[in-house]
């Protein structure tokens, strides 16, 4: 009888996703399990593919900044920031210092609310709903700040080629500083609630570990790599926007497990709050935009540090109204291969927290299915080429 059961259950495969309560994002994982232990995993992405790279080649140059802003709701500043920096690099446009500071303020506020969102989701995945509600309540303060500065919680429409569209009034800076002082205390409380809690230590210590060697070998980026001790932070390495004016240290941990991921993100939360305060306090006077004539043919590749890690854009212009090629690699795509060593040997119950630990975002990563008037339609290559979606 035992032999029959062994044969029946030896290669049990559990599909999770693309739509599953244990996975907030549309990816499909196929776990091969032995009892409760995961022994193999395969993944499939593409459920959110919108072909934005192709559309970037079909839209007039000036409209593409709006399109890249819509790649991701959470990173709706980092994508256009990287995009306009590439175009400015090609056209040798020198952006005013005040605009660089304002761009950095939005980028850091984005990191603060994203890391708070992650802490909440991590709490939700392990059933710690107090943490979920507490962090998401505090995150609303950041969203209100965004609304005060730009008029919208996401899709701020801040970046434009040559600078920024929204200035920061003195009254707004003062009010933002008082919110940031409040958030600094809140970040301390969140850190204490996470690191002093014995349940989180038990659910996260040694769970979903990634060694430094594997992180480097598999090309992991951002907090996911830093949690394994890889000290790479694009803000420090590339000094884009106003980051060159501040002395930042990459925040790292050693073990690469769920607790290490939390340690890194919470340290970055504090760091970002400090940096945003500095940016508001030292905001230079002057214009926020410069005019430019035309964009010459050229190419530029560059990186920005999105909340989830290194975001890379490759942009090529050809002297016409359209881009020759725009390639976008979001951090989640670089972090997907690191799921394999994280999942191998884990318990089924730990799958949701490990999946959430790298803070995956497939809107960024997938970029053909269109839902129109409530009907699902698969887009053909011909329609895609004609830009009819």
């Amino acid at each position, binding site marked *: 009888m035992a032999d029959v059961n062994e044969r029946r259950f030896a290669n049990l495969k559990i599909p999770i996703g693309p739509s599953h309560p244990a996975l907030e994002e549309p990816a499909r994982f196929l776990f091969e399990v032995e009892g409760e232990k995961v022994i193999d995993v395969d993944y499939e*992405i*593409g459920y959110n*593919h919108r*072909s934005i*790279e*192709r559309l970037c080649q079909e839209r007039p140059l000036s409209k593409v900044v709006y399109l890249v802003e819509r790649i991701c709701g959470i990173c709706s500043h980092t994508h256009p920031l990287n995009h306009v920096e590439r175009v400015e*690099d090609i056209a040798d446009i020198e952006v005013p210092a005040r605009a660089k500071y304002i761009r950095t303020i939005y980028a850091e506020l984005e990191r603060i609310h994203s890391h708070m969102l992650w802490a909440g989701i991590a709490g939700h995945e392990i059933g710690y709903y107090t943490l979920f509600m507490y962090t998401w309540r505090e995150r609303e303060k950041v969203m209100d700040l965004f609304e005060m500065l730009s008029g919208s919680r996401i899709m701020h429409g801040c970046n434009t080629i040559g600078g920024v569209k929204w200035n920061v009034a003195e009254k707004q800076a003062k009010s933002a500083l008082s919110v940031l002082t409040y958030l600094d205390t809140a970040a301390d409380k969140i850190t204490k609630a996470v690191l002093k809690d014995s349940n989180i230590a038990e659910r996260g210590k040694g769970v979903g570990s990634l060694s430094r060697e594997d992180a*480097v*070998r*598999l*090309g992991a980026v951002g907090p996911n790599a830093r949690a394994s001790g890889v000290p*790479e932070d694009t803000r420090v*390495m*590339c*000094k884009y926007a106003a980051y060159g004016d501040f002395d930042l240290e990459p925040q790292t941990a050693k073990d690469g497990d769920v607790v290490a991921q939390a340690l890194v993100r919470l340290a970055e939360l504090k760091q970002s709050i400090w940096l945003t305060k500095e940016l508001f306090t030292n905001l230079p006077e002057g214009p926020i935009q410069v005019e430019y004539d035309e964009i010459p043919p050229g*190419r*530029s*590749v*560059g*990186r920005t540090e999105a909340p989830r890690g*290194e975001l*890379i854009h*490759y942009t*090529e212009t050809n002297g016409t109204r359209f881009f*020759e*090629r725009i*390639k976008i*690699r979001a951090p989640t*795509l*670089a972090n*997907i*291969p690191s799921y394999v060593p994280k999942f191998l040997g884990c318990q089924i119950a730990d799958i949701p927290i490990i999946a959430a630990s790298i803070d995956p975002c497939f809107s960024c990563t*997938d*970029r*053909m*299915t269109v839902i129109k008037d409530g009907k699902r339609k*698969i887009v*053909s*290559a*011909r329609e*895609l*080429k004609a830009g009819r979606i």
Partner: protein
Amino acid sequence: MNRSFEDAVPTIEVSHKGLNSYYHIALDDLDTALAFLNEEGARLSTITGKDARDHLEVLYHFAIWGEIHTIIVDLPYDKPDIPTITNRFVAALLYERELIGLLGINVTGIPDARPLELPPKYTDTTPPLRRV
């Protein structure tokens, strides 16, 4: 980089701007270039595929701290074959699968040749990022 790329690998065209360097090389020299970058501790950031109207281009973007070194290789339309680089850079797998699906480039020797983003039943013969 500690050593000069141009001294170690034959190049067709080289340009530098700020933190970016671009090295246009022949397909036959790709493995030499990859071995050099591996020794220099470069990390593969991503791979871009491009339809340049009369040929295809593959651009490998490598990061060394703040710098990005891009290796450019041309492929003819009638024979878009390029060897996999997963033997030297494991992280290349997903980016090479993107090349297969979106540009119809034939990556030889790749351990997993499933297109990355497109649906499995996507049978239209023209890949989405091709211009013709």
